[in-house]
């Protein structure tokens, strides 16, 4: 089976032969793979004799793969995706700059803006409190606050959409 993997924009076409636990990279590379599940989301990978500990965490549109402690963000395209891309049909799903997401989980302890407010770059929007520390969230752009999806006292998860700012 063929897959494209993309790390930091670098795309590699990989062809797997599952029956032999072999990976062939076009045009010349070949690797011996032995991947075994250890726990809920952890794996042991022996790659050409080298032993690695992996954890796998699916994010929207990408995979968070930790190899021996360090986390890589990997996008994967299978044969269908590659085909669609060839016809120029790949959808652009990246979020726009004015979407403020929670970079950390926490409690909204203070909210400094209201819908309709004008904000400058770097202006304080809210305080997220987590693990006894207060974390200030500033505006990455100048614009008008459109929608606010949370209120003071709410608990938000990492990555949750907090507000939209139109520029």
């Amino acid at each position, binding site marked *: 089976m063929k897959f494209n993997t993309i790390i930091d924009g670098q795309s590699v076409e990989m062809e797997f032969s599952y029956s032999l636990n072999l990976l062939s990279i076009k045009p010349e590379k070949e690797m011996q793979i032995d991947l*075994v599940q250890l726990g809920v*989301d952890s794996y042991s990978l022996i790659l050409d004799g080298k032993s690695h500990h992996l954890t796998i965490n699916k994010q929207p549109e990408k995979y968070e793969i930790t190899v*021996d402690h360090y986390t890589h963000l990997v996008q994967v395209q299978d044969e269908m995706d590659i085909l669609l891309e060839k016809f120029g049909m790949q959808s652009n799903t990246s979020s726009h700059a004015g979407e403020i997401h929670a970079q950390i989980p926490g409690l909204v302890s203070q909210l400094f803006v209201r819908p309709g407010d004008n904000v400058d770059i770097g202006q304080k929007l809210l305080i997220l409190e987590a693990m006894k520390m207060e974390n200030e969230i500033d505006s990455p752009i100048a614009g008008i606050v459109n929608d606010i999806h949370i209120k003071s006292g709410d608990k938000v998860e990492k990555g949750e959409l907090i507000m939209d700012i139109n520029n």
Partner: protein
Amino acid sequence: MFKKILIANRGEIAVRVIRTCKEMGMQTVAIYSEPDRTSPHVLLADEAYCVGPGTSSKSYLNVIKILEVIQKCNADAVHPGYGFLSENCDFADAVQKTGAVWIGPPTKAITTMGDKMAARKLVLKTGSPVVPGTTEPLTSINNAKETAKEIGYPILIKAAGGGGGKGMRIIHSENDLKNVIGQAKSEAKKAFADDRIYLEKYLEEPHHIEIQVFADNHGNVVSLGERECSIQRRYQKIIEETPSPFIDDKLRLKLSKTALHITESCDYSGAGTIEFLVDKHKNFYFLEMNTRLQVEHPITEMVNGIDLVKEQIRVAAREKLSFTQEEIIPSGHAIECRIYAEDGFNNFAPSTGIITEIMFPHGLGVRMDEGVRVGQEITIYYDPLLGKLITWGKDRKTALQRMIRALKEFQIAGIETSIPFCLMVLQHNSFQQGNYSTHTLDAIKNELSEAVNNHKKEHDWAARIGAVHAHHKSQQTIITRKGQNKLNNWTVSGRLDELQ
């Protein structure tokens, strides 16, 4: 000696104290908040009682409820750990009114030294050097502005009510003053129920060095040597070692003498820590005294072969210290890495979630003081400290190589931890050479990021293969609609070839 000790704390320090109590043959009582029901301190204690919901103010700071438990379970002593109520003299007094013994210094010493400004005044009186700054809490923004001008920017804002980096902020110019003071006061209030703050001169390239002291109720006061705590992020320590590679024998002796002098001046008993800032010319200044066990106390235990919690309990029982100053001859070198639930390469953002796997490091010279277990949820309620990894070696090189080995072994899945960050710091030239100050971490930030990126490129293939496996698996699940994702079959090995 005591029969039953209640530990008014959670996490790794509660576990740490329980361990020593058990070795001394004492019954142990844990208190816990509702989300902590399956935390290690609850599982390890002989008895455990719930004291409220997740929010600290309603559980671990819920004095009335904790006092009820002390009386209900008939505990004859209370160990407060660090943080929470450990420096709260009202609690210490209330505990003693129930008839239980307070395992900590006399409340008068807590009051004096716990109030960071009163402490500065006292130390100035003993003739010891103190970091330039205010001796009274800030009364207004204007008051702050004036004082800051006098001392000169940059300045540090600090909480009067307690340490640990809570409520601490650096200010470079008057513009930031108002905003930052607001934040600091709010953080201090939450941490210590006391929003008084004060100003201090921010020294250039200082080392954070602290001396562990111990006093009994029979007039014995002993110094157990220094700890080098200059590797800090967000004004909180993350890597500590002893002996300090920066301190020579002459300075060590001076610091110890000053620490003993300060300890004696406040009629102390029990474990205490005198924190100093030491500038690059080896001038030193008293910073504060912590009237409790310190997070990083294990490195002192490792080089001295002494159990500090055992000593705390002995002193609380009015026994004599089990060692004299002459018997304190440190041997070898010890390093501690704090394992936090945070992403060191993403601005130390806290990380929450369920821990799905832990593989602890073990073996010769490795000590683990942990506060979490597999299956436990790390929530936003508490300090992100998951545990501490300590290594000992005959010399600094051995201890350091052992720490790197142990960190590499240490796998925690489900949340981000400070393990990869610590690894990069320890392998950086400035730490390897023992040549660092409190400013080093900021200075080498970019080098660390670069090192991580280079390291990651080497393991690129493994990451790509893992991602393809996950993708293939998730596609299969969707296509076959088998309902259950195979990832939950955790005890079953699943080789790639099963997925054909």
